[in-house]
């Protein structure tokens, strides 16, 4: 357990105090919410369930999309990484689709799926699948051939080798991919909500801005930041355990 970073948190308090003083002294309430107002709004929003409700909506499409992306990404990545022919066959398609930003698909996805959950799950999953796929692929390709051969010669089937050898060996790379995907997916989920404007924390922020409720807006921003922070922290801890167990991961993404 790392020692709590006292200087760090003191600095946060200092910055908050300075911001509070600044907003009041220079009467910036029209542009920025004072920290005290934002924190109060955060408390109110959580207590009344408004903010928790919106975040829950966001989390629904986010987690579902991320789950689908993980399953598909890992499965495809392992398959492509284990069969040379599949890699050769799909490499051009992957290189073609990969640079397309998932957010750009939102307008098209709306046409296909409408404005509800299915559309959001789709864009989140599409956005999240790439880092996971590439990470898994990279891990699978980097798996020591010796491990492979040992497994094969001791009678394991092709599929068994993939599951018992390639998958564990690729876990560090997969973990990194999932961490990147988690960040991308959150961004896409909230962007979609912002764009559509019906529900979710993204829509909430849009409305609070339009209604000029700055404290509520900043409360939502703080909550989103905290969510991103918590997700990142949780994944990093898991990643460290995985790396510790399996060994060093390749440090550079392809």
């Amino acid at each position: 357990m790392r020692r709590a970073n006292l200087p760090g948190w003191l600095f946060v308090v200092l910055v908050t105090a300075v911001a509070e003083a600044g907003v009041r002294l220079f009467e910036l309430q029209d542009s920025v919410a004072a920290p005290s107002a934002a924190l109060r709004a955060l408390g109110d929003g959580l207590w009344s369930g408004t903010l928790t409700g919106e975040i829950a909506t966001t989390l629904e499409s986010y987690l579902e999309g991320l789950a689908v992306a993980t399953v598909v990404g890992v499965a495809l990545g392992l398959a492509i990484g284990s069969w040379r022919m599949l890699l050769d066959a799909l490499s051009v398609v992957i290189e073609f689709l990969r640079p397309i930003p998932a957010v750009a698909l939102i307008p098209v996805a709306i046409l296909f799926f409408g404005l509800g959950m299915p559309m959001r799950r789709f864009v989140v999953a599409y956005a999240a699948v790439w880092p996971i796929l590439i990470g898994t692929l990279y891990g699978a390709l980097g798996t020591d051939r010796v491990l492979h051969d040992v497994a094969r010669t001791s009678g394991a089937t092709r599929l068994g080798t993939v599951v018992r050898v390639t998958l564990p060996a690729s876990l560090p790379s997969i973990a990194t991919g999932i961490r990147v995907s988690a960040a991308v997916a959150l961004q896409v989920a909230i962007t979609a909500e912002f764009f559509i404007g019906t529900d979710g924390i993204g829509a909430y922020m849009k409305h609070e801005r339009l209604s000029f409720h700055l404290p509520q807006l900043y409360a939502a921003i703080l909550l989103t930041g905290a969510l991103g922070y918590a997700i990142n922290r949780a994944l990093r801890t898991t990643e460290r355990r995985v790396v510790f167990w399996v060994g060093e991961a390749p440090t550079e993404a392809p």
Partner: protein
Amino acid sequence: MTTTAPARVARRLLGPAVFVAALALWQAWAAHKDSFLVPTVTAVAERAWDVWPTSGFIDQVTATLGRFAAGYVLGAAIGVAAGLVLGSSRAARRAFEPLQEFLGSTPAIAIVPAAIVIFGLGDATRVAVIAFAVCFPVLVSTIEGVRAVSPETRDTARMLHVGPAELILRIYAPAALPSIVAGLRVALAIGLIVTVISEFVVGSGDGVGRYILVQRTLYDAPGVYGGILFLGLLGYVLNRLFVVVERRVLSWHYGAAGESAR
């Protein structure tokens, strides 16, 4: 593993062949379905051929690239500068750590409404948001690069009487450059994504993102798909350009790393 010449040629052709086959499949399915939602490959290609070379579209591309470049350079500059300073001082790092981790995990989209209130509905907001998204990966990789500078290098700098400012600019900056460049590469993709987001959700304005939205309201599916593909192409080209520049800027690093790998 077959390595005869014909086999190698076949392997090289497999990827493009599958790609073309996928396009053909799409073409057939789209033609069969005949829905305005699913344009044929030929329809998309035709529209692209007609629209992309026009000055109107090129203006959109320039607008997008312009704000991307502005946000990227601004974000990178802040990230590198702050990273060099934070990398050199353990106390500063500790002080900034919670704030940095919190802000760094905040998705740029969450900043957008706050930025709109402060900067309005124009490019200032877009560039600010792009810079926000770009600066954190660059900051992190710069700090890592400075921290990784070896004790021998630091001792050598002390023996050569390098002052604090000189240390950061003439020793840490070049020594950390490989790590900085890695962060800049990650930030390139992030910057482009946030550029698109900024065009989607911040006001009206122009740009390729705007073009996609406008064409959607006009039910121009080939135009919409074409716009999306263009963004993909843009990302691909920017990435390749980056690699070319990277190779030149870091030529000394590749050589040195190659030697020490022996």
